[in-house]
């Protein structure tokens, strides 16, 4: 938090998260998915674009175990992944 008492300079205003806070995963139920995601990140030089499938799976795990409010994945920004999946299904 900025402590400089300058009137007029922009100070940082923390904002609450849009969907609130994640409940803590006390029992490590989604730890396997997290490990998969972290491994993917390490393998791909920490590029998020290449590991979006793993992050989607982690969030799905949370939603299944009531550790996250159920939400359609499009609303979480995974629309392109959903479109890809439906396209792949169509082509099959």
């Amino acid at each position, binding site marked *: 938090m900025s402590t400089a008492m300058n009137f007029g300079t922009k100070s940082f205003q923390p904002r609450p998260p849009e*969907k609130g806070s*994640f409940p803590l995963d006390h029992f490590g139920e989604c730890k396997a998915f*997290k490990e998969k995601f972290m491994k993917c990140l390490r393998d791909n030089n920490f590029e998020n674009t290449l590991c979006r499938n793993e992050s989607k799976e982690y969030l799905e795990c949370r939603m299944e175990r009531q550790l996250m409010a159920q939400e359609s994945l499009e*609303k979480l920004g995974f629309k392109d992944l959903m479109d890809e999946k439906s396209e792949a299904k169509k082509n099959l």
Partner: protein
Amino acid sequence: RSRGSRRRTLTSPGPDSHSRARPDLALAGAGSGARALCPGCHGGVWARQPSWRPRSSNPFTREQEQEWRRRNRTVLTYVAAAAVGMIGASYAAVPLYRLYCQTTGLGGSPVAGHASDQIETMVPVKDRIIKVTFNADVHASLHWNFRPQQTEIYVVPGETALAFYKAKNPTDKPVIGISTYNVVPFEAGQYFNKIQCFCFEEQRLNPQEEVDMPVFFFIDPEFAEDPKMAKVDVITLSYTFFEAKEGHKLPVPGYN
């Protein structure tokens, strides 16, 4: 004639025993000429020196002096009113400024109507890669091991990203912590949107417990269009954990 009799009581004892005991009052009687110049002053035995006395003895300039005195008083009243008005305005400025910032969205304050269906429709800006580095801090009184699980992650605006922090409670008692965050540079903070995280709510860790704490965020695609952000390639997200005590309120964002 009465004045003359009073003067005589100064030197010789007389029936008027007041004046002998109170010589200053006798003096007031002696200075009777002053009473004519000071019509507003209370005359009589208890009269003191008047507070203001015109300097000139000329009646015409005396009037002018009175006129000046009146004008000075008017000016002084106006100046005092202006000073009080300034102080009042400085107190009123705080809520007014807040209102102004909320309506115009300047200074990075939250703009009303930031809908979450923006996430659905936003298009990633693939040619602008931003490095997000992570920092974790803990307040001195909180004995948790709190650290990020990745030092950095490369994202593009418009794409949602997941990152993890890890916290461990090495003590033998359950501890409740609450965290806040900070984004550097400050101007990039308005584009940094957290969909879900672990901040601003109390998180309880049992003894010897270790948990993963995810942060799900994205950078607003408008970041790529802001000329002020053209040189910004690194954004640092910093979380700080405090111990949540009874009755201690962490300043939660929002105007309450």
